[in-house]
């Protein structure tokens, strides 16, 4: 069980690192939201599932799963609200310059 949880946690860390690279490298706010909401959700899911496996069957398992459900609720909602504000404020999505 410990080996499985270590594998899950390392995979989650990999996805979180990819999200951090994405938020530095991507060109504008609409593309950066992919790094924050999509990749971050997957990484947090894998990491918390790994921690729950390490913890074993107890009351803490239910609490960790509740935190996970809360993360899954809030991450897309916040990204959607922010992007709706951005597009109503008149930001234009990024386009590659064709030379």
């Amino acid at each position: 069980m410990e080996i499985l949880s270590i594998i899950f946690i390392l995979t989650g860390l990999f996805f979180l690192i990819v999200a951090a690279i994405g938020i530095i490298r991507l060109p504008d706010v609409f593309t950066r939201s992919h790094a924050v909401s999509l990749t971050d959700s997957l990484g947090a899911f894998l990491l918390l599932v790994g921690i729950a496996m390490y913890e074993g069957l107890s009351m803490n398992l239910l609490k960790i799963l509740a935190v996970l459900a809360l993360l899954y609720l809030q991450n897309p909602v916040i990204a959607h609200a922010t992007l709706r504000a951005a597009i109503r404020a008149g930001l234009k999505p990024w386009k590659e310059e064709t030379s």
Partner: protein
Amino acid sequence: MTTFFLFVLLVLAGLIGAYLYRVLQGPTIFDRVLGLNGISTKAIILLVVIGIVYDRVEMFVDISTGYALLNLVGALAVAKYLEQKGLP
């Protein structure tokens, strides 16, 4: 196993630095809001891992639940405010 969780803790704390760069540097205000959202996601996971390291998971998980609820309400309020105000 504690060494492994300390390693996870260090990597997560380093990732917060990348988001902090975006919060300080971001060209528009929406970049800063997105960066703050990423930092709070990392902080929630960080609190659970700290609970594992200190062997007090039942307490730290409650703290991270409260932090997640506060972050949800705060970020929605900021987004609503910016939506009505427009670009500064």
